């Protein structure tokens, strides 16, 4: 197991004395290869807080977090007994707000920062930057621009490029598609899926888009009010659980399928999870 949480609690000190309990009694395991997970749940439920424990940006108050065999504990981190670099190299995290991640003068410097930090020679890091900037749908001219003078979606793309350049084993993306135009969203989801499928890496995506969950996820984690309330299959989630209680919604595909069943009496022989699959399934029964 690459990442293991055992009964983890986390409290933000925050601005008032009480503090704010953001994670309660979380236990879960994540493999270092071959997983495609979506993490969902209502606003403020603890998703961002949870993933920030996965590369030791935050450290649990109680319980234990194991990352590649390293026990991440408050005292050890404080005394700098834990080397965080190897963790950060294996577990890459794209922040919810790209502004928190972009800080260099140029996009090129931003994207090459991570690789150079992990010992990749400059020339190679630049080549990688030229490659990943295109993967996120921008052309090379963006490399010379300041990351601060970009549109919201362009910033998001650059912050994703920065993590792709680091080629981590576990890729965690905190709402990577919010702010992307529809085609950009579809294209990048394919990129993440390919990384999972072809390179056998683990990808974890936080999202509020139920369609992403239904189309792509092999495993879904649902957070609610600091608790992990579901860890399992996406189809089971949407077909057997009372998702409204968790502020979730029915994916478009499932919704359309139900409505066609109800209004037109069409019963499909399979359970399509993409528009293409739905079309094929309809073709089958309509021919």
């Amino acid at each position, binding site marked *: 197991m690459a990442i293991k949480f055992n009964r983890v609690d986390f409290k933000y000190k*925050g601005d*008032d004395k009480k503090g704010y309990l953001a994670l309660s009694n979380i236990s879960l395991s994540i493999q270092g290869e071959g997983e495609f997970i979506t993490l969902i749940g209502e606003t403020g439920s603890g998703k961002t807080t949870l993933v920030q424990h996965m590369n030791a940006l935050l450290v649990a108050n109680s319980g234990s977090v194991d990352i590649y065999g390293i026990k991440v504990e408050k005292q050890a981190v404080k005394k700098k007994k834990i080397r965080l670099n190897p963790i950060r190299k294996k577990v890459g995290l794209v922040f919810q707000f790209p502004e928190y991640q972009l800080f260099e003068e140029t996009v090129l410097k931003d994207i090459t920062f991570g690789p150079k930090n992990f010992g990749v020679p400059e020339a190679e890091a630049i080549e990688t930057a030229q490659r990943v900037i295109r993967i996120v749908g921008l052309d090379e001219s963006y490399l010379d621009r300041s990351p601060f003078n970009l549109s919201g979606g*362009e910033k*998001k793309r650059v912050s994703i490029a920065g993590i792709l350049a680091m080629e981590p084993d576990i890729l965690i993306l905190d*709402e990577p598609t919010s702010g992307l*135009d*529809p*085609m950009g969203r579809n294209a990048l989801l394919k990129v993440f899926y390919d990384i999972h499928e072809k390179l056998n890496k683990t990808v974890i995506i936080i999202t509020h888009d139920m369609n992403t969950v239904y189309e792509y996820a092999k495993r879904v984690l649902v957070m609610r009010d600091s608790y992990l309330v579901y860890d399992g299959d996406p189809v089971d989630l949407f077909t057997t659980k009372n998702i409204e209680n968790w502020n979730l919604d029915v994916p478009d595909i499932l919704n*359309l399928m139900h409505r066609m069943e109800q209004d037109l009496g*069409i019963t499909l022989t399979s359970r399509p999870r993409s528009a293409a699959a739905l079309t094929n399934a309809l073709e089958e029964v309509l021919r």
Partner: protein
Amino acid sequence: MRIIEIDNVSFHYKAGTPVLENVNLNVDKGEWITILGHNGSGKSTLSKLLVGLLRAKQGTIRVANVELSETTVYDIRKKIGIVFQNPDNQFVGVTVRDDIAFGLENLQVPRGEMIERIEQYAQKVDMADFLNKEPHNLSGGQKQRVAIAGILAMETDIIIFDEATSMLDPKGRNTILSMMKQLNDEGVTVINITHDMKESLYGDRIVVLKEGRILKDDTTKVVLADHKTLEKSSLEMLLPLRVLRALEAKKVDNEKVRSYLWQLSLTG
């Protein structure tokens, strides 16, 4: 009645790199218009021009019959509010309460009413328990809700929402959209910038931007069915229409299914 008139407006951040070119756009009082367009097409830039945060290099903008200029900008900001794409850019207060208060102070709302409005709007966006928290210590969706409350509390005639719901959970998003709908029904003019194609069903009209120009300005029904325009600007059709077109491509022709999917694609 025209409430916004954008006449031949052009803008660039850096000379030689045009960001908006010859934009003409009129908005009537009480309209809900949706602005769609690829990343970097100029949506946020246009919205900043409208509230006078940026100044057009060419052309004129009139809001409620007043031409936007250095002398009129402060009056115009009393009529037009904007929820920024990045809520962090909007926060000025130490607490959520201060933050909502800030806009109201600028409008010189009397103290008693101010306290009332802060409570009222914090409650509307479900953030009443967070009034004493620092905005920067909130989750992404919580920040968005506070940013929305701050602008709604100002009760302006026109509100621009620049991807204001992009980080909300599905239920929260629906709540905010219903609230926007209610305001619109009461006569508030809504300009909604979004990447969520479904959100455009709330309004009657869609403006599509592409590389700084208006590619299309038409009714929601027409634009949502205009495959070519959508594709050119990195957008997509709603699911029922996508399925309908894919079935047509496969030469599967079933009249009942066809008309059903067509109907759904226009009503959501």
